[in-house]
């Protein structure tokens, strides 16, 4: 098996918040192979966005980073100058809120071709043509006219497509998609997702797809990783995640989603609220306070991420709980 395109090991990030150092990521490990799509699922505060930012070196000033992030075998955090810029061309990030992430006083054409003209030296006319072509690939017609428009003249959905198109223009090898459809309405979500998924497969790009929606990740990604309180708690083939989860949190997430095919009595919510990395009780399993299967062994120390049946799990009881996690403790 060839070396993975992206390899993250032991990634721990601490940020300074109001004078104290708080952990936001703890010992995060994941791999993405060439052409593979990995979903990264978690609730607010789980650290999924922060992981993407760490990979793309977009962390705020004063962030402490431990552990390693390797892209194509090279340490990302050791890159500088021209190497760093080349890295940034090969890894493209798609952000959540397109309106905030596109400069409102510059034209769409400027936005799309900026990286091409500045970093790759593409002449303006050629860059504009490529931008036009890419726009039609994401389903936006009238290329030349669109390039002269300003962001406020486009809807949110269109702007997100523009962002996707712009990301693909530099021919990256890895896409970091940070909840690209969360800020859009449901119908537009489906359209944009289809475009993103389609183009990704067509160009053979690897993707780290971040979302809070377990089903969505499982639908378009080959493998899915689940995060809780700044840690990866499970990594699994997407197809098996729903029926054979390896961690109680994954099972609870899957069960909490209302099923439209059956009438249910009560919505199954997970008791308590999701914790961020710095709120997690130290020296024990972060999910233990809310887990229906927690025992003393769970509080004895931070559980390691261990292999199980082709996937990874941070539950010390994963072995014994297999098969029993698919159904909730009390139906």
């Amino acid at each position, binding site marked *: 098996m060839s070396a993975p395109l992206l390899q993250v090991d032991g990634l721990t990030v601490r940020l300074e918040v109001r004078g104290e150092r708080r952990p936001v990521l703890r010992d995060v490990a994941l791999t993405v192979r060439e052409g593979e799509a990995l979903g990264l699922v978690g609730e607010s505060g789980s650290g999924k966005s922060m992981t993407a930012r760490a990979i*793309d070196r*977009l962390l705020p000033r004063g962030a402490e980073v431990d552990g390693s992030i390797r892209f194509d075998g090279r340490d990302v955090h050791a890159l500088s100058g021209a190497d*760093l*810029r*080349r*890295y*940034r*061309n090969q890894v*493209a*990030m798609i*952000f959540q*809120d397109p309106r*905030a*992430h*596109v*400069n*409102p*006083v*510059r034209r769409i054409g400027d936005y799309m071709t*900026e*990286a091409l003209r*500045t*970093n790759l030296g593409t002449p303006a006319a050629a860059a504009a043509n490529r931008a036009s072509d890419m726009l039609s690939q994401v389903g936006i017609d009238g290329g030349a006219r669109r390039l002269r428009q*300003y962001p*406020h003249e486009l809807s949110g959905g269109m702007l997100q497509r523009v*962002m996707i198109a712009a990301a693909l223009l*530099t021919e990256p090898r890895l896409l970091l998609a940070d909840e690209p459809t969360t800020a859009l309405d449901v119908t537009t979500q489906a359209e944009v997702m289809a475009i993103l998924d389609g183009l990704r497969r067509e160009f053979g790009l690897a993707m780290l797809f971040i979302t809070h929606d377990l089903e969505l990740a499982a639908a378009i990604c080959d493998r899915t990783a689940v995060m809780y309180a700044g840690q990866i708690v499970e990594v699994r083939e997407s197809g098996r995640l729903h029926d054979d989860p390896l961690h109680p949190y994954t099972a609870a997430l899957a069960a909490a989603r209302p099923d439209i095919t059956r009438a249910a009595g009560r919505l199954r919510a997970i008791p308590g609220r999701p914790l961020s990395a710095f709120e997690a009780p130290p020296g024990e399993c972060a999910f233990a306070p809310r887990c229906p299967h927690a025992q003393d062994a769970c509080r004895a120390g931070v559980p390691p991420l261990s292999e199980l049946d082709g996937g990874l799990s941070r539950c010390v009881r994963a072995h014994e709980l297999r098969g029993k996690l698919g159904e909730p403790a009390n139906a």
Partner: protein
Amino acid sequence: MLAASLLIASFVIFAAVYLAPGNPISALSGGRALPASSIRVLEARYHLNEPFFAQYWYWLTNALHGNLGISIILRENVSTLIASRIWTTAGLVLYASVLILVFGIGMGIVAGLRPGFLDTSTLVITAISAAIPSFVAAIVLILLFSVKLGWFPALGNGTSFLSNVQHFTLPAVALAFSALAIVARVTRASIREESDREHVQTAISRGIPARQLIRRHILRNAAIPITTITGITIASLIAVAAVVETAFSLNGLGAYLVQAAESKDLAVVQGISLVLVTAFVVVNMLVDVLYALLDPRVSLGSRAQ
């Protein structure tokens, strides 16, 4: 909107004749006793026997034609008196504006882009300079640079262009000194704010080099609030110039306005007030136009707060 302001302002200036205690004649004459023939001349010139709004109309149309009445003290056309002094004030305000643009915005940009020593010292300097009124700055500058060091003359206008510049330097610095502070602060704050915006993150994630980043995404966007505050500040210089002109004995409109107010030469006061308010409104209009040009989201006439 600004045109409406100008109209109302002109009305207030005109109405000053009636707001004054006593009757219009005593207001126009500044409380001096006048021979009956002079009174009749005043009545005719100001149409005092006609309805109020008709008088306003005459006064306004006269003003638009350049006829601003006659000074009761110097017995000359107000417009001539203004014309001879207007370049002093204009030159002073221009000089001070250049200083504000170069040093105010310059300091703000440096402080905004580099946290650390330069930033802290900018904050301290602006905190102090904001509190120093122009006339206090004037006497300190005169003390330091005129009396002690002898680099610049203390008072008066100067004769040639070069000596004008020499004579206007200290006054321009005094005028610009406290105005610098707010321009520098707003510039710094805008640059800080723009640097933290998400679209800058997008550009960083694409590997745009720092110089381009600053120019195209931070400065270009920050230019909007910076232009607004600079414009407003420059507009306010028009009024404060009066204080500086008095302190340095410059022969400008502001100083003359003060003298006319003291000697109750109402026609002159009205004339100069009208000119200054018009200048103020025109500068504000320019700011609006610039704002609309810089921000494609905004159409002319709506300056977001």
